[in-house]
């Protein structure tokens, strides 16, 4: 049993380290490319395409106005940008709140019976004829340059969708601060997937598509409440190019309680597993490039890795706690300052510890680069401390819950 657990752990560690090495090589291979892209974007657009941003909202009375205002403040020609606010049968005062925009020539407001986010998006898509179409969740806000930067990428005729960089809106407290690092990490990963032509999520907040994508491939689907994963996979399956504009920032409000965070992340992981199941024929197929042979299989394996390594770590911690409890129960509490007499003999030099140090160094390197990409600089703050100390304990919770939901067919919900 002990040997089997060890072997599985080594295999998973090898795979995880391999992924890390691969991604870091991709970064070092392309870091000059990132600079080039930034220079290209700074040159600006020769011709501005027409864009419609759909804001689907369901019970968003508190945030919808701010979201629309952030869109109106975009640095983009007013005659080229339309905002379509769609109330998806809200039961609060969302409809009343959006009335104030009804006379704005840039804004269109609609209401429909509740049917879910994807129905609101399809409703909007069916009514427009702009070159580009995007969506902004009603709890997200955009940086004024975001759309301009994204539109630059569409100068490449092959580009069919552009994913933005998602950051957090004014994070406060340990839970939101640790998510800030996670989102920064997401920006780095998505950029690397961009270089590998393997972006498999076009995030809900402010991903922009050519309208022709929906005309040719059809509208959004329910897709287990993660339509942003499904549409990206459908595009990849059909050979459509998706890129990532790392300098197009969009900010979203992070869950402020563990319960909300668990719910949100469970939905994401559940959605990934279910959609990966629906698109399983893409796995290990060379025709889908890096996405098929590496990124999708690795994303699936990472779920198993995190659960296994977390289970082993948690079992180890529990075992130590039980032993400590037994010791206290037997001889009472006695405190020994652990570093009073340092001896190298007691330093853990097992293979797993050395690999863990190397893997942690790789992860910290990626976090430094991620934070530089997301914030323009690296600063060591509490967000990093919370992420490094807490994330490994809470992430397995939603991954475990999502896996449980998949196995026992418990459907994920939005709220």
């Amino acid at each position, binding site marked *: 049993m002990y040997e089997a657990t060890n072997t599985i752990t080594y295999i998973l560690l090898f795979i995880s380290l391999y992924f890390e090495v691969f991604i870091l090589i991709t970064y070092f291979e392309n870091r000059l490319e990132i600079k080039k892209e930034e220079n290209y974007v700074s040159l600006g657009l020769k011709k501005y395409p027409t864009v419609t941003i759909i804001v689907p909202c369901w019970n968003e009375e508190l945030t919808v106005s701010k979201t629309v205002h952030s869109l109106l403040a975009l640095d983009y020609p007013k005659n080229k940008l339309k905002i379509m606010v769609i109330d998806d049968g809200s039961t609060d005062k969302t409809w009343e709140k959006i009335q104030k925009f009804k006379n704005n020539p840039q804004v269109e407001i609609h209401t429909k019976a509740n049917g879910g986010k994807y129905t609101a998006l399809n409703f909007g898509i069916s009514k427009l004829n702009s070159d580009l179409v995007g969506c902004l969740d009603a709890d997200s806000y955009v940086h004024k340059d975001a759309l301009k930067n994204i539109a630059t990428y569409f100068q490449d005729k092959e580009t069919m969708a552009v994913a933005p960089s998602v950051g957090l809106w004014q994070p406060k407290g340990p839970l939101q601060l640790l998510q800030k690092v996670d989102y920064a990490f997401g920006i780095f990963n998505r950029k690397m997937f961009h270089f590998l032509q393997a972006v498999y999520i076009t995030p809900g907040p402010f991903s922009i598509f050519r309208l022709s994508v929906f005309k040719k491939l059809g509208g959004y689907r329910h897709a287990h409440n993660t339509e942003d994963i499904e549409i990206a996979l459908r595009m990849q399956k059909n050979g459509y190019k998706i890129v990532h504009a790392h300098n197009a920032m969009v900010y979203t409000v992070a869950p402020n309680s563990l319960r909300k965070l668990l719910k949100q992340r469970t939905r994401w992981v559940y959605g990934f597993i279910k959609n990966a199941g629906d698109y399983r024929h893409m796995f290990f197929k060379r025709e889908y490039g890096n996405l098929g042979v590496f990124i999708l299989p690795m994303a699936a394996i990472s779920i198993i890795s995190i659960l296994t390594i977390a289970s082993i770590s948690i079992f180890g911690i529990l075992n130590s706690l039980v032993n400590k409890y037994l010791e206290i129960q037997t001889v009472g509490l006695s405190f020994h300052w652990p570093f009073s007499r340092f001896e190298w003999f007691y330093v853990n*030099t*097992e293979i797993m510890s*050395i690999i863990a140090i190397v893997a942690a160094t790789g992860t910290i390197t990626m976090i430094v680069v991620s934070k530089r990409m997301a914030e323009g600089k690296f600063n060591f703050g509490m967000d990093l401390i919370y992420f490094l100390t807490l994330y490994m304990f809470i992430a397995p919770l939603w991954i475990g819950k999502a896996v449980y939901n998949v196995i026992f067919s418990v459907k994920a919900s939005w709220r």
Partner: protein
Amino acid sequence: MEPKKINSKKYLFSFIITAIIFATAIYLSNYFSQKKLDEIRNIQDKISIDILSSETQFSLLEESLCKDLGTETLSSELGELENKLAYTENMRGVNDPEVTTLKRYYSLLEIKDYLLMNKISEKCNKTPLSIIYFYSTNNDCLDCEKEGYVLTKLRETYPDLRIYSFDYNLDLSAVRTLISINKTRNELPALIIKDKTYYGFQSIEDLEKNVPELRLLRNTKTATSTTATSTKKN
């Protein structure tokens, strides 16, 4: 649809780097492991020399006064050896052949130390106070873990108390002889104190009650270092 390009060289290169990291980790781990085993062997050799030196000193000073001979002449590093051995046993597993060899050597050193202490005590008309502790690393001794904590605590409280711990199942004739002369049954944990054997878990209070001499040791302020101790620490 045109198939997307895959850079096979990058996959291979990443694999080679990962394999090199793994191979280096295995090499480093083995290197440090060997260094640690060497350190244990060095301590054992030093203890062996200490014991031999004490025995020789004992023979030389046979006619001398007891003040020249005391328990402090016994090796002071058995405690450190025991700690390092217990740690190594935890890390490498109880069935590791290196650990078994080291434990056999350690047990022999303990017996030699025990005999020497008895000799010195006899010559100087002192009543030796020591605990012989039999434990098992098999899962059949649930209380051995707890007894280990008790004996570790006793060692801290009474630094002059000598505790000799033996794996009951160790395949070593000297240990088997020690078991047979004391007629120790396989009901572990078992403690032998002043020729009396106590079976089952004994708390600190039990031991202090059964061995009142322990309290005398509490007041002894000798500078003697600790010696052999309990085992099965975590």
